[in-house]
């Protein structure tokens, strides 16, 4: 079985999100980029599948800022190969184009399962799993919390609103959008990542920038949400804040006396 895990970088959301001068994108040169947390879950589920059976795991990403570190980490965790798709890739890459680029590479590959994160913080024109599955004309399932596979079939635990889970039997190949792996993503030490880096495991492949973009989707600008509904910030240190909170709870009859 051949499993492909597609990963990408997004800005670290804990940091201040600086915008470019024209306000249509976050400043990708300036920002710290980290792996999309759901892609990390997809990688973990892929690694669990690989360990459970006889599978080859290939991790693939577009050539975007800081992606090498993510690919090296994936190799250090146990991926068999890492592919970096290169081409004219700058700025925000919408999901339709991302799917088209991945699809153009995948069409020359044999694969049984494509795993990727259920969503990403910047997939404004839709989530990758459905777009990629539809472009490849294979079944796709989003919000998976467990995947098992054998003999051309996968069993996929798909979570619906409110926590109900449908267990699907899916004919392979298929694209699965992973919400959470069956276990927390494994940790890999910096020294192992360095080793992977030194053995130079990333293969670069140039892809044609497919025409399947979203010209009819025009991102005019990004703005911070209006402060209108903003919280009243409680002044002072932890002690004073705690005083205020206890007062508030008391006023609502939620603490005794």
């Amino acid at each position: 079985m051949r499993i492909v895990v597609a990963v990408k970088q997004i800005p670290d959301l804990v940091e201040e999100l600086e915008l470019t001068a024209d306000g249509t994108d976050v400043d990708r040169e300036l920002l710290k980029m980290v792996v999309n947390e759901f892609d990390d879950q997809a990688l973990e589920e892929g690694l669990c599948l690989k360990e459970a059976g006889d599978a080859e795991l290939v991790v693939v990403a577009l050539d975007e800022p800081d992606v090498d570190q993510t690919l090296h980490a994936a190799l250090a965790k146990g991926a068999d190969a890492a592919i970096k798709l290169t081409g004219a890739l700058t700025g925000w890459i919408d999901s339709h184009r991302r799917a088209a680029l991945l699809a153009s590479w995948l069409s020359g590959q044999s694969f049984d399962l494509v795993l990727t994160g259920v969503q990403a913080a910047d997939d404004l024109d839709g989530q990758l799993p459905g777009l990629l599955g539809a472009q490849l004309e294979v079944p796709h399932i989003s919000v998976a919390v467990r995947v098992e596979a054998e003999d051309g079939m996968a069993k996929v635990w798909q979570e619906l609103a409110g926590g109900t889970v449908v267990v699907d039997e899916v004919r392979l190949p298929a694209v699965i959008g992973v919400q959470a792996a069956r276990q927390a993503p494994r940790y890999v030490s910096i020294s192992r990542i360095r080793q992977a880096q030194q053995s130079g495991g990333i293969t670069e492949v140039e892809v044609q920038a497919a025409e399947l973009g979203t010209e009819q989707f025009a991102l005019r600008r990004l703005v911070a949400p209006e402060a209108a509904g903003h919280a009243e910030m409680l002044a002072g240190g932890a002690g004073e804040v705690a005083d205020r909170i206890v007062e508030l709870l008391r006023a609502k009859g939620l603490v005794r006396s």
Partner: protein
Amino acid sequence: MGNDVLVLAEHRNGRLSDVTFELVGKARELADRGGGRVLAVLLGETSLAHELGVADVVLCSEDPAVATYNAQAYERAMVHVVERQQPRLVLTSTTTVGMDVSTALSVHWPAPLASYVVDVRRDGEDLAVTCRAYGGKLLAEVALTGPRAICAVIAGCFPAADGRSEVAGRSEVAGQVELLDLEGVFDGLGVSVAQVVEPEKGDVDITAADLLVSVGRGIGSRENLEVVQELADALGAPLAASRPLIDQGWLPKARQVGKSGLTVRPKVYLALGISGAPEHLEGMQHAETVIACNTDPKAPIFDVATYGTTVDLFDLTDELVKRVQE
């Protein structure tokens, strides 16, 4: 080009979900402005069609392929319907169903798609759409051009009352109910549903509490949960959490607040180390009072909180425990 607005209805345990009414209400407004009809697609539970009186036409199917949610069957049915109806706009939610269907439609029908939509307006020939982006830290203003479009809308952004026939003053089944002819549409499906598993009922019911202490990834490690548990115990409140803590196995699923967990409306929701991602907000934004503690002053949780503080959650927890235990 048509001016119809088509909504995919969602239901669970024999009830239409709130977001369906939110979408139908919005669809009504947009269709009325553009002189089009509201079409609702209802798969699997035809008996609920009479609740969709705000729509002009309810398109139903009782085909066994869509009796329970099957991603591929829903996709095929929706592609079949939109190819025949050619609406101006399709509205779905951003639930699992909405994500599966909106993306596939965008490719097969082809139409531009905006996701995480919180507002959609007509703007001349185009649609002006606002989307929540970057975990809620930014809003994106998007123009969808061309003759048709798809919007996947976040639950809780439009009033559900506008879509409920009894509230909106439209008689039941004002619209027509039509049975879809889906002959052949489900041939050779590659997805079948083997089993449906309902979530386990928890030891405590977080939806029943007046006061909830809720904790997020800011807690750092499982060991640290002890300190917030101590606070919850002192306050006599159950401990709830954001999804990542549940996924790590640190707390049972029945403690999860949000889109894929429970919706809570306590008198006070004390959020410790929770960023306020859209999926979390869906589950708690209607709490009476939200008190949020987060060291990042730009955290989106502060946009829905009543009171906020940027002190460290561990310091705050210590101080609160001291005061409450006194």
